[in-house]
Protein backbone atom coordinates (compact mmCIF):
# COMPACT_ATOMS: atom_id res chain seq x y z
CA UNK A 1 0.00 0.00 0.00
CA UNK A 2 2.64 2.53 1.08
CA UNK A 3 5.10 1.32 -1.56
CA UNK A 4 2.45 2.05 -4.17
CA UNK A 5 2.03 5.56 -2.80
CA UNK A 6 5.78 6.04 -2.99
CA UNK A 7 5.80 4.94 -6.65
CA UNK A 8 3.02 7.39 -7.45
CA UNK A 9 4.96 10.16 -5.74
CA UNK A 10 8.06 9.29 -7.74
CA UNK A 11 6.04 9.32 -10.97
CA UNK A 12 4.88 12.80 -10.08
CA UNK A 13 8.26 14.21 -9.03
CA UNK A 14 10.73 12.52 -11.40
CA UNK A 15 9.76 14.37 -14.63
CA UNK A 16 10.61 17.69 -12.90
CA UNK A 17 13.95 16.31 -11.67
CA UNK A 18 14.72 15.04 -15.17
CA UNK A 19 13.85 18.42 -16.64
CA UNK A 20 16.20 20.08 -14.12
CA UNK A 21 18.94 17.74 -15.28
CA UNK A 22 19.38 16.09 -11.86
CA UNK A 23 18.25 12.72 -13.22
CA UNK A 24 18.83 11.33 -16.68
CA UNK A 25 15.85 9.97 -18.67
CA UNK A 26 17.39 6.50 -18.44
CA UNK A 27 17.78 6.95 -14.67
CA UNK A 28 14.15 8.01 -14.37
CA UNK A 29 12.98 4.82 -16.08
CA UNK A 30 15.32 2.71 -13.93
CA UNK A 31 14.14 4.31 -10.68
CA UNK A 32 10.46 3.82 -11.60
CA UNK A 33 11.14 0.22 -12.65
CA UNK A 34 12.94 -0.57 -9.37
CA UNK A 35 10.24 1.07 -7.26
CA UNK A 36 7.50 -0.80 -9.15
CA UNK A 37 9.29 -4.11 -8.60
CA UNK A 38 9.68 -3.47 -4.87
CA UNK A 39 6.04 -2.42 -4.52
CA UNK A 40 4.97 -5.65 -6.21
CA UNK A 41 7.05 -7.72 -3.76
CA UNK A 42 5.89 -5.88 -0.64
CA UNK A 43 3.22 -7.11 1.77
CA UNK A 44 -0.22 -5.76 0.99
CA UNK A 45 -1.09 -4.61 4.45
CA UNK A 46 -4.73 -3.66 3.88
CA UNK A 47 -5.98 -7.09 2.74
CA UNK A 48 -4.04 -8.77 5.57
CA UNK A 49 -5.31 -6.31 8.17
CA UNK A 50 -8.88 -6.70 6.92
CA UNK A 51 -8.56 -10.49 6.97
CA UNK A 52 -7.25 -10.44 10.54
CA UNK A 53 -9.92 -7.97 11.69
CA UNK A 54 -12.53 -10.10 9.93
CA UNK A 55 -11.28 -13.26 11.65
CA UNK A 56 -11.24 -11.57 15.05
CA UNK A 57 -14.74 -10.10 14.51
CA UNK A 58 -16.09 -13.47 13.41
CA UNK A 59 -14.44 -15.07 16.45
CA UNK A 60 -15.92 -12.44 18.78
CA UNK A 61 -19.37 -13.01 17.25
CA UNK A 62 -19.08 -16.78 17.74
CA UNK A 63 -17.94 -16.26 21.35
CA UNK A 64 -20.93 -13.97 22.01
CA UNK A 65 -23.27 -16.52 20.41
CA UNK A 66 -22.04 -19.21 22.76
CA UNK A 67 -22.03 -16.77 25.69
CA UNK A 68 -25.72 -16.09 25.09
CA UNK A 69 -26.44 -19.83 25.38
CA UNK A 70 -23.73 -20.64 27.94
CA UNK A 71 -25.99 -21.63 30.85
CA UNK A 72 -28.04 -24.01 28.72
CA UNK A 73 -25.01 -25.83 27.35
CA UNK A 74 -23.88 -29.09 28.98
CA UNK A 75 -20.28 -29.10 30.29
CA UNK A 76 -19.09 -31.40 27.53
CA UNK A 77 -20.36 -29.00 24.82
CA UNK A 78 -18.70 -26.08 26.59
CA UNK A 79 -15.40 -27.97 26.62
CA UNK A 80 -15.73 -28.86 22.93
CA UNK A 81 -16.34 -25.20 22.09
CA UNK A 82 -13.40 -24.00 24.20
CA UNK A 83 -10.87 -26.55 23.01
CA UNK A 84 -12.21 -26.59 19.44
CA UNK A 85 -11.90 -22.84 18.94
CA UNK A 86 -8.30 -22.91 20.16
CA UNK A 87 -7.39 -25.89 17.97
CA UNK A 88 -9.00 -24.28 14.89
CA UNK A 89 -7.00 -21.07 15.40
CA UNK A 90 -3.77 -23.09 15.63
CA UNK A 91 -4.76 -25.25 12.63
CA UNK A 92 -5.20 -22.13 10.47
CA UNK A 93 -1.90 -20.81 11.82
CA UNK A 94 -0.19 -24.10 10.93
CA UNK A 95 -1.53 -23.93 7.40
CA UNK A 96 -0.35 -20.34 7.03
CA UNK A 97 3.11 -21.16 8.38
CA UNK A 98 3.52 -23.93 5.83
CA UNK A 99 2.92 -21.44 2.99
CA UNK A 100 5.78 -19.45 1.55
CA UNK A 101 4.00 -16.15 0.84
CA UNK A 102 4.74 -13.38 3.33
CA UNK A 103 1.04 -12.53 3.54
CA UNK A 104 0.09 -16.07 4.59
CA UNK A 105 2.83 -16.03 7.25
CA UNK A 106 1.49 -12.71 8.58
CA UNK A 107 -1.99 -14.21 8.87
CA UNK A 108 -0.46 -17.29 10.51
CA UNK A 109 1.13 -15.15 13.22
CA UNK A 110 -2.18 -13.33 13.74
CA UNK A 111 -3.82 -16.73 14.23
CA UNK A 112 -1.09 -17.78 16.68
CA UNK A 113 -1.88 -14.64 18.65
CA UNK A 114 -5.58 -15.52 18.52
CA UNK A 115 -4.67 -19.02 19.73
CA UNK A 116 -2.86 -17.55 22.73
CA UNK A 117 -5.81 -15.27 23.50
CA UNK A 118 -8.14 -18.28 23.36
CA UNK A 119 -5.76 -20.29 25.57
CA UNK A 120 -6.06 -17.54 28.22
CA UNK A 121 -9.84 -17.41 27.78
CA UNK A 122 -9.94 -21.18 28.25
CA UNK A 123 -7.94 -20.98 31.49
CA UNK A 124 -10.49 -18.54 32.88
CA UNK A 125 -13.58 -20.32 31.59
CA UNK A 126 -12.44 -23.79 32.68
CA UNK A 127 -11.66 -22.32 36.11
CA UNK A 128 -15.23 -21.00 36.10
CA UNK A 129 -16.84 -24.23 34.89
CA UNK A 130 -15.01 -26.33 37.50
CA UNK A 131 -15.05 -23.69 40.26
CA UNK A 132 -11.27 -23.55 40.45
CA UNK A 133 -10.50 -20.63 42.74
CA UNK A 134 -6.75 -20.91 43.06
CA UNK A 135 -4.06 -18.29 43.62
CA UNK A 136 -5.16 -16.20 40.60
CA UNK A 137 -1.74 -14.88 39.47
CA UNK A 138 -0.89 -18.52 38.69
CA UNK A 139 -3.54 -18.43 35.95
CA UNK A 140 -1.80 -15.47 34.34
CA UNK A 141 1.58 -17.20 34.71
CA UNK A 142 0.16 -20.31 33.03
CA UNK A 143 -1.14 -18.12 30.19
CA UNK A 144 2.27 -16.49 29.82
CA UNK A 145 4.04 -19.86 29.78
CA UNK A 146 1.62 -21.00 27.06
CA UNK A 147 2.87 -18.08 24.96
CA UNK A 148 6.46 -19.01 25.87
CA UNK A 149 5.95 -22.44 24.28
CA UNK A 150 5.03 -20.74 21.00
CA UNK A 151 8.01 -18.40 21.27
CA UNK A 152 10.52 -21.24 21.65
CA UNK A 153 8.96 -23.92 19.48
CA UNK A 154 7.28 -22.14 16.54
CA UNK A 155 8.59 -19.25 16.97
CA UNK A 156 6.32 -16.18 16.96
CA UNK A 157 7.06 -12.55 17.78
CA UNK A 158 3.40 -11.53 18.47
CA UNK A 159 3.22 -14.43 20.96
CA UNK A 160 6.43 -13.14 22.57
CA UNK A 161 4.98 -9.65 23.00
CA UNK A 162 1.76 -11.10 24.47
CA UNK A 163 3.69 -13.43 26.77
CA UNK A 164 5.96 -10.67 28.07
CA UNK A 165 2.96 -8.43 28.81
CA UNK A 166 1.32 -11.34 30.67
CA UNK A 167 4.51 -12.03 32.62
CA UNK A 168 4.60 -8.38 33.72
CA UNK A 169 0.94 -8.62 34.72
CA UNK A 170 1.66 -11.79 36.72
CA UNK A 171 4.56 -10.15 38.50
CA UNK A 172 2.52 -7.01 39.19
CA UNK A 173 -0.25 -9.11 40.78
CA UNK A 174 2.25 -11.01 42.95
CA UNK A 175 3.96 -7.78 44.03
CA UNK A 176 0.95 -5.53 44.56
CA UNK A 177 -1.66 -8.08 45.71
CA UNK A 178 0.45 -10.69 47.49
CA UNK A 179 3.18 -8.68 49.12
CA UNK A 180 6.35 -9.81 47.31
CA UNK A 181 8.85 -7.00 48.10
CA UNK A 182 10.92 -7.95 45.05
CA UNK A 183 9.36 -10.56 42.80
CA UNK A 184 12.56 -12.30 41.69
CA UNK A 185 10.82 -15.19 39.82
CA UNK A 186 9.75 -12.65 37.20
CA UNK A 187 13.37 -12.27 36.09
CA UNK A 188 13.60 -15.98 35.23
CA UNK A 189 10.46 -15.85 33.06
CA UNK A 190 11.55 -12.51 31.61
CA UNK A 191 14.93 -13.96 30.58
CA UNK A 192 13.20 -16.85 28.83
CA UNK A 193 11.34 -14.32 26.65
CA UNK A 194 14.18 -11.82 26.25
CA UNK A 195 16.75 -14.39 25.09
CA UNK A 196 14.85 -15.51 21.93
CA UNK A 197 13.82 -11.89 21.26
CA UNK A 198 17.50 -10.85 21.16
CA UNK A 199 18.61 -13.98 19.32
CA UNK A 200 16.03 -13.57 16.57
CA UNK A 201 16.32 -9.79 16.32
CA UNK A 202 12.66 -9.18 17.24
CA UNK A 203 12.35 -5.43 17.73
CA UNK A 204 8.82 -5.34 19.13
CA UNK A 205 9.47 -8.20 21.53
CA UNK A 206 12.76 -6.61 22.68
CA UNK A 207 10.97 -3.32 23.27
CA UNK A 208 8.20 -5.14 25.18
CA UNK A 209 10.80 -6.99 27.28
CA UNK A 210 12.53 -3.75 28.26
CA UNK A 211 9.24 -2.02 29.04
CA UNK A 212 8.20 -5.04 31.17
CA UNK A 213 11.49 -4.81 33.05
CA UNK A 214 10.81 -1.11 33.65
CA UNK A 215 7.29 -1.87 34.91
CA UNK A 216 8.74 -4.52 37.23
CA UNK A 217 11.18 -1.95 38.66
CA UNK A 218 8.35 0.57 39.04
CA UNK A 219 6.09 -1.84 40.96
CA UNK A 220 8.96 -2.58 43.37
CA UNK A 221 9.16 1.09 44.33
CA UNK A 222 5.38 1.55 44.43
CA UNK A 223 4.90 -1.43 46.74
CA UNK A 224 8.01 -0.99 48.89
CA UNK A 225 7.11 -1.41 52.58
CA UNK A 226 5.68 1.83 53.91
CA UNK A 227 7.85 1.90 57.03
CA UNK A 228 10.97 1.62 54.88
CA UNK A 229 10.15 4.23 52.22
CA UNK A 230 13.51 5.93 52.66
CA UNK A 231 15.03 3.15 50.56
CA UNK A 232 13.12 4.50 47.53
CA UNK A 233 15.97 6.93 46.82
CA UNK A 234 18.51 4.12 46.58
CA UNK A 235 16.14 1.97 44.53
CA UNK A 236 15.72 4.88 42.12
CA UNK A 237 19.49 5.11 41.86
CA UNK A 238 19.71 1.41 41.03
CA UNK A 239 16.95 1.62 38.39
CA UNK A 240 18.23 4.82 36.77
CA UNK A 241 21.74 3.33 36.54
CA UNK A 242 20.29 0.08 35.18
CA UNK A 243 18.55 2.10 32.46
CA UNK A 244 21.78 3.94 31.61
CA UNK A 245 23.75 0.67 31.52
CA UNK A 246 21.20 -0.96 29.19
CA UNK A 247 21.16 2.18 27.01
CA UNK A 248 24.94 2.10 26.68
CA UNK A 249 24.84 -1.66 26.06
CA UNK A 250 22.46 -0.81 23.21
CA UNK A 251 25.09 1.57 21.85
CA UNK A 252 27.70 -1.20 22.03
CA UNK A 253 25.31 -3.52 20.14
CA UNK A 254 25.89 -1.43 17.01
CA UNK A 255 29.22 -3.22 16.59
CA UNK A 256 27.82 -6.73 17.07
CA UNK A 257 26.46 -7.89 13.69
CA UNK A 258 23.84 -10.22 15.16
CA UNK A 259 22.47 -7.55 17.53
CA UNK A 260 23.04 -4.39 15.47
CA UNK A 261 19.44 -4.29 14.21
CA UNK A 262 18.21 -4.09 17.82
CA UNK A 263 20.58 -1.30 18.85
CA UNK A 264 18.14 1.54 18.22
CA UNK A 265 15.20 -0.02 20.04
CA UNK A 266 17.37 -0.97 23.04
CA UNK A 267 19.02 2.45 23.23
CA UNK A 268 15.76 4.36 22.98
CA UNK A 269 13.63 2.21 25.28
CA UNK A 270 16.33 2.12 27.96
CA UNK A 271 16.84 5.87 27.63
CA UNK A 272 13.15 6.48 28.33
CA UNK A 273 13.37 4.19 31.38
CA UNK A 274 16.51 5.89 32.71
CA UNK A 275 15.05 9.38 32.25
CA UNK A 276 11.77 8.32 33.86
CA UNK A 277 13.59 6.98 36.93
CA UNK A 278 16.03 9.90 37.15
CA UNK A 279 13.20 12.41 36.92
CA UNK A 280 12.01 11.38 40.39
CA UNK A 281 15.28 12.63 41.93
CA UNK A 282 13.80 16.14 41.71
CA UNK A 283 11.16 15.36 44.34
CA UNK A 284 12.44 16.23 47.81
CA UNK A 285 10.24 13.58 49.42
CA UNK A 286 12.22 10.88 47.61
CA UNK A 287 15.35 12.16 49.41
CA UNK A 288 13.55 11.98 52.75
CA UNK A 289 13.68 15.77 53.02
CA UNK A 290 10.78 17.47 54.79
CA UNK A 291 8.11 19.22 52.76
CA UNK A 292 8.11 23.00 52.96
CA UNK A 293 4.78 23.01 54.79
CA UNK A 294 6.48 21.28 57.75
CA UNK A 295 8.87 24.13 58.36
CA UNK A 296 8.24 26.04 61.55
CA UNK A 297 6.36 23.14 63.13
CA UNK A 298 8.30 20.15 64.40
CA UNK A 299 11.16 20.58 62.00
CA UNK A 300 14.65 21.35 63.27
CA UNK A 301 17.53 21.12 60.73
CA UNK A 302 20.01 20.52 63.57
CA UNK A 303 18.36 17.37 64.84
CA UNK A 304 16.87 16.11 61.54
CA UNK A 305 18.42 12.92 60.16
CA UNK A 306 17.62 10.83 57.11
CA UNK A 307 15.47 7.94 58.29
CA UNK A 308 16.87 5.29 55.98
CA UNK A 309 20.46 4.29 55.33
CA UNK A 310 21.36 2.00 52.44
CA UNK A 311 22.42 -1.49 53.49
CA UNK A 312 25.43 -3.32 52.02
CA UNK A 313 23.26 -5.09 49.44
CA UNK A 314 21.81 -1.85 48.10
CA UNK A 315 25.26 -0.21 47.99
CA UNK A 316 26.57 -3.23 46.08
CA UNK A 317 23.75 -2.94 43.53
CA UNK A 318 24.40 0.78 43.07
CA UNK A 319 28.14 0.18 42.72
CA UNK A 320 27.76 -2.63 40.16
CA UNK A 321 25.37 -0.71 37.91
CA UNK A 322 27.22 2.61 38.30
CA UNK A 323 30.57 1.06 37.40
CA UNK A 324 29.00 -0.94 34.54
CA UNK A 325 27.46 2.27 33.15
CA UNK A 326 30.78 4.10 33.50
CA UNK A 327 32.73 1.30 31.81
CA UNK A 328 30.26 1.21 28.91
CA UNK A 329 30.39 5.01 28.57
CA UNK A 330 34.18 4.98 28.40
CA UNK A 331 34.08 2.09 25.95
CA UNK A 332 31.64 3.99 23.76
CA UNK A 333 33.96 6.97 23.39
CA UNK A 334 37.03 4.82 23.02
CA UNK A 335 35.43 3.24 19.97
CA UNK A 336 33.61 6.13 18.32
CA UNK A 337 36.26 8.81 18.50
CA UNK A 338 39.94 8.13 18.05
CA UNK A 339 40.68 11.82 18.43
CA UNK A 340 38.31 12.73 21.22
CA UNK A 341 36.26 15.84 20.65
CA UNK A 342 35.40 18.20 23.50
CA UNK A 343 31.86 16.83 23.40
CA UNK A 344 33.10 13.27 23.85
CA UNK A 345 35.39 14.23 26.68
CA UNK A 346 32.56 16.16 28.35
CA UNK A 347 30.42 13.03 28.09
CA UNK A 348 33.05 10.91 29.81
CA UNK A 349 33.57 13.58 32.48
CA UNK A 350 29.82 13.68 33.16
CA UNK A 351 29.64 9.88 33.31
CA UNK A 352 32.48 9.95 35.85
CA UNK A 353 30.78 12.70 37.87
CA UNK A 354 27.44 10.84 37.83
CA UNK A 355 29.15 7.65 38.99
CA UNK A 356 30.88 9.50 41.84
CA UNK A 357 27.63 11.15 42.95
CA UNK A 358 25.68 7.90 42.78
CA UNK A 359 28.33 6.07 44.80
CA UNK A 360 28.72 8.89 47.34
CA UNK A 361 25.01 9.33 48.12
CA UNK A 362 24.42 6.09 50.06
CA UNK A 363 27.70 6.57 51.95
CA UNK A 364 26.95 10.13 53.11
CA UNK A 365 25.95 10.80 56.73
CA UNK A 366 22.23 11.35 57.10
CA UNK A 367 22.36 14.94 58.38
CA UNK A 368 20.15 17.63 56.87
CA UNK A 369 23.01 19.58 55.26
CA UNK A 370 24.36 16.39 53.67
CA UNK A 371 20.94 15.41 52.31
CA UNK A 372 20.44 18.88 50.79
CA UNK A 373 23.97 18.81 49.34
CA UNK A 374 23.31 15.42 47.72
CA UNK A 375 19.93 16.62 46.44
CA UNK A 376 21.65 19.50 44.66
CA UNK A 377 24.56 17.31 43.49
CA UNK A 378 22.30 14.59 42.04
CA UNK A 379 19.91 16.95 40.29
CA UNK A 380 22.71 19.28 39.16
CA UNK A 381 24.45 16.31 37.54
CA UNK A 382 21.17 15.18 35.99
CA UNK A 383 20.55 18.61 34.45
CA UNK A 384 24.12 18.76 33.16
CA UNK A 385 23.62 15.35 31.53
CA UNK A 386 20.33 16.52 29.97
CA UNK A 387 22.06 19.53 28.45
CA UNK A 388 24.87 17.32 27.17
CA UNK A 389 22.28 14.94 25.70
CA UNK A 390 20.70 17.80 23.76
CA UNK A 391 24.05 18.93 22.38
CA UNK A 392 25.20 15.40 21.59
CA UNK A 393 21.87 14.42 20.05
CA UNK A 394 21.74 17.61 18.00
CA UNK A 395 25.25 17.08 16.63
CA UNK A 396 24.86 13.37 15.94
CA UNK A 397 21.38 13.71 14.48
CA UNK A 398 19.79 11.55 17.22
CA UNK A 399 16.48 13.39 17.48
CA UNK A 400 15.00 10.90 19.94
CA UNK A 401 17.74 11.75 22.44
CA UNK A 402 17.11 15.49 22.00
CA UNK A 403 13.33 15.15 22.46
CA UNK A 404 13.81 12.82 25.45
CA UNK A 405 16.14 15.31 27.14
CA UNK A 406 13.76 18.22 26.47
CA UNK A 407 10.76 16.34 27.86
CA UNK A 408 12.70 15.29 30.98
CA UNK A 409 13.97 18.86 31.41
CA UNK A 410 10.46 20.29 31.04
CA UNK A 411 8.97 17.73 33.44
CA UNK A 412 11.59 18.57 36.08
CA UNK A 413 11.00 22.31 35.70
CA UNK A 414 7.27 21.75 36.07
CA UNK A 415 7.87 19.66 39.20
CA UNK A 416 10.01 22.41 40.76
CA UNK A 417 7.33 24.98 39.92
CA UNK A 418 4.79 23.10 42.06
CA UNK A 419 7.16 22.03 44.85
CA UNK A 420 6.36 23.42 48.29
CA UNK A 421 9.83 22.64 49.63
CA UNK A 422 11.20 25.76 47.97
CA UNK A 423 10.02 29.29 48.62
CA UNK A 424 8.25 31.10 45.80
CA UNK A 425 11.38 33.17 45.22
CA UNK A 426 13.59 30.06 45.00
CA UNK A 427 11.20 28.41 42.58
CA UNK A 428 11.03 31.55 40.49
CA UNK A 429 14.85 31.68 40.27
CA UNK A 430 15.17 27.99 39.36
CA UNK A 431 12.48 28.15 36.68
CA UNK A 432 13.84 31.44 35.25
CA UNK A 433 17.33 29.95 35.23
CA UNK A 434 16.05 26.82 33.52
CA UNK A 435 14.35 28.88 30.83
CA UNK A 436 17.46 31.04 30.33
CA UNK A 437 19.70 27.96 29.99
CA UNK A 438 17.30 26.56 27.40
CA UNK A 439 17.23 29.76 25.32
CA UNK A 440 21.01 30.14 25.54
CA UNK A 441 21.50 26.52 24.52
CA UNK A 442 19.21 26.80 21.51
CA UNK A 443 20.94 30.06 20.47
CA UNK A 444 24.43 28.49 20.68
CA UNK A 445 23.39 25.36 18.82
CA UNK A 446 21.65 27.33 16.09
CA UNK A 447 24.69 29.56 15.66
CA UNK A 448 26.96 26.54 15.39
CA UNK A 449 24.61 24.91 12.88
CA UNK A 450 24.64 28.03 10.69
CA UNK A 451 28.40 28.37 10.79
CA UNK A 452 28.79 24.67 9.94
CA UNK A 453 26.33 25.06 7.03
CA UNK A 454 28.20 28.17 5.82
CA UNK A 455 31.51 26.30 5.99
CA UNK A 456 30.05 23.42 3.97
CA UNK A 457 28.71 25.81 1.35
CA UNK A 458 32.17 27.42 1.13
CA UNK A 459 33.84 24.05 0.64
CA UNK A 460 31.31 23.06 -2.02
CA UNK A 461 31.83 26.25 -4.00
Amino acid sequence: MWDRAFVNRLRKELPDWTEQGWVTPAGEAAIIGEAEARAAQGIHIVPIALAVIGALTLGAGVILFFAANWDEMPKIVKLIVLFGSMWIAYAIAGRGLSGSARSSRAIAHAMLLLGIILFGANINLIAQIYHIDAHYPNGVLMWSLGALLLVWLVPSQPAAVAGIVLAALWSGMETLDFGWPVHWPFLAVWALFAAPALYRGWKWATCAALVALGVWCFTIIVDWPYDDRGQSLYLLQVFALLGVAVHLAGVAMQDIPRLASLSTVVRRTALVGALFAAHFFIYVGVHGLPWYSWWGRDFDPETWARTAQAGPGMIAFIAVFALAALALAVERYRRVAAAHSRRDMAGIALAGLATAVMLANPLMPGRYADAVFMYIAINGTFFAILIWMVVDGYRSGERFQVYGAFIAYGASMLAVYFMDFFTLMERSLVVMGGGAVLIAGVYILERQRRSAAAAETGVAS
Partner: protein
Amino acid sequence: MMKKYRTFLLILVVVLQTAALVGMVAIKQRTLINGKPILLETEPIDPRSLFRGDYVRLNYTISSLDYAAVEGDNDFEQHEEIYVMLREGEKFWEAVSIHHAMPAHGPESVIIRGGVDYIGIWTGGESRDGISVRYGIENYFVPEGEGMALERPAEGEEVTILVAVDEAGDSAIKAVLLNDEVRYEEKLF
Protein backbone atom coordinates in the same frame (compact mmCIF):
# COMPACT_ATOMS: atom_id res chain seq x y z
CA MET B 1 11.53 -31.07 5.82
CA MET B 2 11.72 -27.78 7.70
CA LYS B 3 7.96 -27.21 7.22
CA LYS B 4 7.13 -30.68 8.56
CA TYR B 5 9.38 -30.06 11.55
CA ARG B 6 7.64 -26.71 12.21
CA THR B 7 4.19 -28.33 11.92
CA PHE B 8 5.29 -30.99 14.41
CA LEU B 9 6.45 -28.30 16.87
CA LEU B 10 3.16 -26.41 16.53
CA ILE B 11 1.26 -29.62 17.22
CA LEU B 12 3.49 -30.14 20.26
CA VAL B 13 2.55 -26.65 21.52
CA VAL B 14 -1.15 -27.40 21.04
CA VAL B 15 -0.79 -30.72 22.87
CA LEU B 16 1.07 -29.11 25.79
CA GLN B 17 -1.43 -26.24 26.10
CA THR B 18 -4.33 -28.69 25.96
CA ALA B 19 -2.62 -30.90 28.55
CA ALA B 20 -2.22 -27.89 30.85
CA LEU B 21 -5.93 -27.11 30.60
CA VAL B 22 -6.91 -30.75 31.14
CA GLY B 23 -4.47 -30.85 34.07
CA MET B 24 -6.37 -28.02 35.78
CA VAL B 25 -9.53 -30.13 35.68
CA ALA B 26 -7.70 -33.34 36.61
CA ILE B 27 -6.13 -31.87 39.75
CA LYS B 28 -9.53 -30.59 40.83
CA GLN B 29 -11.20 -33.93 40.13
CA ARG B 30 -8.50 -35.78 42.07
CA THR B 31 -9.35 -33.74 45.17
CA LEU B 32 -13.08 -34.30 44.65
CA ILE B 33 -12.66 -38.07 44.22
CA ASN B 34 -10.01 -38.77 46.86
CA GLY B 35 -10.82 -36.01 49.36
CA LYS B 36 -12.73 -36.57 52.58
CA PRO B 37 -16.14 -34.85 52.45
CA ILE B 38 -16.76 -32.35 55.25
CA LEU B 39 -19.72 -30.04 55.81
CA LEU B 40 -18.89 -26.37 56.37
CA GLU B 41 -21.05 -23.62 57.74
CA THR B 42 -21.23 -20.43 55.69
CA GLU B 43 -22.01 -16.93 56.79
CA PRO B 44 -23.92 -14.39 54.65
CA ILE B 45 -22.92 -14.66 51.01
CA ASP B 46 -22.59 -12.04 48.38
CA PRO B 47 -23.41 -12.57 44.70
CA ARG B 48 -21.61 -10.64 41.98
CA SER B 49 -22.99 -10.44 38.48
CA LEU B 50 -20.41 -11.20 35.89
CA PHE B 51 -20.42 -11.48 32.11
CA ARG B 52 -21.93 -14.93 32.30
CA GLY B 53 -24.06 -16.05 35.18
CA ASP B 54 -23.44 -15.09 38.79
CA TYR B 55 -20.93 -16.24 41.27
CA VAL B 56 -21.60 -16.42 44.94
CA ARG B 57 -18.90 -15.37 47.32
CA LEU B 58 -18.78 -17.76 50.24
CA ASN B 59 -17.62 -16.73 53.66
CA TYR B 60 -17.10 -19.73 55.93
CA THR B 61 -17.09 -19.82 59.68
CA ILE B 62 -13.54 -21.20 59.44
CA SER B 63 -12.52 -18.18 57.29
CA SER B 64 -12.15 -15.96 60.40
CA LEU B 65 -9.95 -17.56 63.03
CA ASP B 66 -9.72 -15.99 66.48
CA TYR B 67 -6.33 -16.76 68.07
CA ALA B 68 -8.06 -17.08 71.43
CA ALA B 69 -10.47 -19.72 70.11
CA VAL B 70 -7.96 -22.04 68.41
CA GLU B 71 -4.75 -23.74 69.49
CA GLY B 72 -1.42 -23.92 67.69
CA ASP B 73 0.63 -21.09 66.21
CA ASN B 74 -0.45 -17.47 66.56
CA ASP B 75 2.24 -15.53 64.74
CA PHE B 76 1.08 -15.59 61.13
CA GLU B 77 1.86 -12.94 58.55
CA GLN B 78 -0.21 -11.78 55.61
CA HIS B 79 -0.09 -14.09 52.54
CA GLU B 80 1.60 -16.84 54.55
CA GLU B 81 0.53 -20.45 54.02
CA ILE B 82 -1.52 -21.92 56.84
CA TYR B 83 -2.71 -25.41 57.80
CA VAL B 84 -5.96 -25.55 59.75
CA MET B 85 -6.96 -28.68 61.66
CA LEU B 86 -10.72 -29.32 61.52
CA ARG B 87 -12.80 -31.68 63.68
CA GLU B 88 -16.40 -32.61 63.21
CA GLY B 89 -18.74 -30.73 65.52
CA GLU B 90 -22.43 -31.31 66.09
CA LYS B 91 -23.24 -30.68 62.45
CA PHE B 92 -20.36 -28.78 60.89
CA TRP B 93 -16.61 -29.23 60.89
CA GLU B 94 -14.87 -26.64 63.05
CA ALA B 95 -11.33 -25.25 63.34
CA VAL B 96 -9.44 -26.54 66.40
CA SER B 97 -5.84 -25.55 65.72
CA ILE B 98 -3.73 -23.62 63.19
CA HIS B 99 -0.17 -24.36 62.06
CA HIS B 100 2.66 -23.10 59.85
CA ALA B 101 3.30 -26.62 58.52
CA MET B 102 1.21 -29.75 58.02
CA PRO B 103 0.73 -31.23 61.53
CA ALA B 104 0.44 -34.91 62.38
CA HIS B 105 -3.20 -35.83 62.84
CA GLY B 106 -5.51 -38.78 63.35
CA PRO B 107 -8.44 -40.02 61.28
CA GLU B 108 -10.90 -37.99 63.37
CA SER B 109 -9.51 -34.73 61.99
CA VAL B 110 -8.84 -33.15 58.59
CA ILE B 111 -6.16 -30.64 57.63
CA ILE B 112 -7.17 -27.93 55.16
CA ARG B 113 -4.54 -25.69 53.56
CA GLY B 114 -5.11 -21.98 52.96
CA GLY B 115 -3.41 -18.61 52.80
CA VAL B 116 -3.61 -15.78 55.32
CA ASP B 117 -5.64 -13.02 53.70
CA TYR B 118 -5.58 -10.43 56.48
CA ILE B 119 -4.25 -10.04 59.98
CA GLY B 120 -6.91 -9.08 62.51
CA ILE B 121 -10.58 -9.97 62.41
CA TRP B 122 -13.82 -8.21 63.20
CA THR B 123 -16.37 -10.28 65.09
CA GLY B 124 -19.28 -9.37 67.29
CA GLY B 125 -18.77 -5.68 66.61
CA GLU B 126 -15.21 -5.61 67.92
CA SER B 127 -11.71 -6.08 66.58
CA ARG B 128 -10.07 -9.36 67.61
CA ASP B 129 -6.57 -10.79 67.49
CA GLY B 130 -6.77 -13.35 64.71
CA ILE B 131 -6.55 -13.95 60.98
CA SER B 132 -8.76 -14.08 57.92
CA VAL B 133 -7.98 -17.12 55.75
CA ARG B 134 -8.71 -18.04 52.11
CA TYR B 135 -8.91 -21.71 51.12
CA GLY B 136 -9.64 -21.39 47.39
CA ILE B 137 -13.27 -22.46 47.85
CA GLU B 138 -14.70 -18.97 48.31
CA ASN B 139 -16.22 -18.54 44.84
CA TYR B 140 -18.92 -20.67 43.27
CA PHE B 141 -20.38 -19.94 39.84
CA VAL B 142 -24.10 -20.50 39.40
CA PRO B 143 -26.38 -19.96 36.37
CA GLU B 144 -27.36 -16.36 35.66
CA GLY B 145 -30.04 -15.09 38.03
CA GLU B 146 -29.65 -17.83 40.64
CA GLY B 147 -27.04 -16.12 42.77
CA MET B 148 -29.60 -13.97 44.57
CA ALA B 149 -31.54 -17.08 45.68
CA LEU B 150 -28.44 -18.24 47.52
CA GLU B 151 -27.63 -14.79 48.81
CA ARG B 152 -30.95 -14.25 50.49
CA PRO B 153 -32.42 -17.63 51.40
CA ALA B 154 -36.02 -17.47 52.53
CA GLU B 155 -36.90 -17.43 56.22
CA GLY B 156 -35.68 -20.64 57.84
CA GLU B 157 -33.57 -21.72 54.86
CA GLU B 158 -29.91 -22.61 55.42
CA VAL B 159 -27.11 -22.76 52.84
CA THR B 160 -24.23 -25.12 53.63
CA ILE B 161 -21.30 -26.31 51.58
CA LEU B 162 -19.96 -29.84 51.22
CA VAL B 163 -16.21 -29.67 50.66
CA ALA B 164 -13.73 -32.41 49.74
CA VAL B 165 -10.33 -32.13 51.43
CA ASP B 166 -7.48 -34.37 50.25
CA GLU B 167 -4.41 -35.60 52.14
CA ALA B 168 -2.32 -32.62 50.98
CA GLY B 169 -4.84 -30.19 52.44
CA ASP B 170 -6.21 -29.08 49.05
CA SER B 171 -9.95 -28.51 48.99
CA ALA B 172 -12.75 -28.33 46.43
CA ILE B 173 -16.47 -27.64 46.63
CA LYS B 174 -18.35 -30.90 46.16
CA ALA B 175 -21.89 -29.60 46.56
CA VAL B 176 -23.99 -26.63 47.61
CA LEU B 177 -26.83 -27.61 49.94
CA LEU B 178 -30.01 -25.71 50.67
CA ASN B 179 -31.70 -27.00 53.85
CA ASP B 180 -29.48 -30.09 53.73
CA GLU B 181 -30.62 -30.94 50.21
CA VAL B 182 -28.16 -30.82 47.35
CA ARG B 183 -28.86 -27.78 45.16
CA TYR B 184 -25.73 -27.93 42.97
CA GLU B 185 -23.39 -30.88 42.71
CA GLU B 186 -20.00 -30.98 41.05
CA LYS B 187 -19.70 -33.44 38.17
CA LEU B 188 -16.97 -33.97 35.60
CA PHE B 189 -19.38 -33.53 32.65
